């Protein structure tokens, strides 16, 4: 239990650092904005109670916000995602329920399941994030494009991150 906690503290630190030091500085295109740090909330254990999920999501969002000088922006988006996490876990749950000892990652239920589970959550996150950031309906098409493009880019990197990070658990 304690070991797992320490692991998640490191996991949070690394996810946030990868986000702010690598992905927030990549300037390949202005529509593919990878929001890698969502991997932390996606991979929290099944049996963690839903209130803890909300507060941990808030924590990760605040950390990213501090680095970007955008207080409340990422926090709001990721808390939305944390709120809907259980809902999507229930929708895609296998017939006999989840194995509580496993993590909601690729190594437990496969890539297809993970992409289905994370797609809508990341979409919700990006929707809130980019709408709040633009805070106007001006250039709405551009904002929508950004939301979908970033969702796809984020999923690609979250899947890669998942494979690299949790290889041992297989």
């Amino acid at each position, binding site marked *: 239990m304690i070991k797992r906690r320490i692991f998640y503290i490191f996991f949070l630190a690394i996810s946030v650092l990868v986000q702010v030091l690598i992905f927030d*500085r990549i300037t390949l295109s202005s529509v593919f904005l990878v929001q890698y740090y969502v991997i932390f909330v996606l991979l929290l254990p099944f049996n963690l109670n839903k209130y803890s999920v909300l507060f941990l999501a808030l924590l990760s969002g605040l950390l990213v916000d501090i680095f970007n000088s955008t*207080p409340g922006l990422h926090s709001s988006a990721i808390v*939305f995602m944390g709120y809907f996490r259980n809902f999507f876990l229930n929708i895609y749950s296998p017939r006999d329920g989840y194995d509580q000892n496993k993590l909601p990652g690729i190594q437990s239920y496969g890539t297809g399941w993970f992409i289905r589970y994370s797609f809508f959550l990341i979409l919700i996150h990006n929707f809130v994030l980019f709408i709040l950031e633009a805070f106007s309906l001006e250039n709405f098409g551009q904002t929508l494009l950004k939301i979908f493009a970033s969702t796809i880019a984020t999923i690609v990197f979250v899947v890669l991150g998942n494979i690299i990070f949790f290889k041992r658990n297989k």
Partner: protein
Amino acid sequence: MKNLIRFIINNDFFLTFLLIQIFCFTLLFSYNPYHRSYFFNSSNVLSGIIQEKHSNITEYFYLKHVNDSLIAENERLRNQIEKYRREEIPPILSSGFSYIAAKVVGISVNKIDNYITINKGKNHGVYNEMGVISSNGLVGIVISVSSNYSTILPLINPQTKISVKIKKNNYFGSLSWIKGEANYGLVTEIPGYVQFEEGDEIVTSGFSAIFPENIPVGNIVSSEIDPTTRFHKIKIRFNTDFYNLHYVYLIKNKNFEEHNQIISELEKKND
């Protein structure tokens, strides 16, 4: 009342979510970069130290580029010295401006609210509302200072407004950023009868205590006349390339206090 209590007990998860969202939105909408809200800012100690460590590692990758720009700047400065020598201008009239060099440790370009973090703070003599330039041109204004780091509001932030002029004929206007297009800005408030051409230089007007006069800002790319106001809308390309910005200079105005004092006295009189 009973119903309300029952509602709260039954929906406590949703209410927790709502409370957190209210907290986030309060942060989001009460935040103003000009307030010195110290904690939620990239100049705070945590993010300052981490970003500096990171930039210490990555700066090696840019050494070649930085060298090139330093050589170019050296050349320009040498030429200037030569010019002064030849014309035998008496020791330059004290302009009242001096410079502090600083390294960029954090920068965002693709967001809507972009900021730059640098590795100089109060301990090095940085104060709020200092002007910031690069070796190529204008960069922005200092808006938040901690003891060792500062945050800059760059040209590529919708809140930035800077007074500029066309170098050729001295007509002045106001510069803002074209949202989403890094490296491009919009100059407004220049009357429709003013003549200029593509490629003409835009420089600072020198009306504020923040920037000296004639610091290059950008070059005119295109322009159109706003049919309702008959004023020009001029699109310019910034001289500073924000995608490739590693070192900046902070402008220290020795007469900053005096200038502000006069302006505040004037404002008092007008009230």
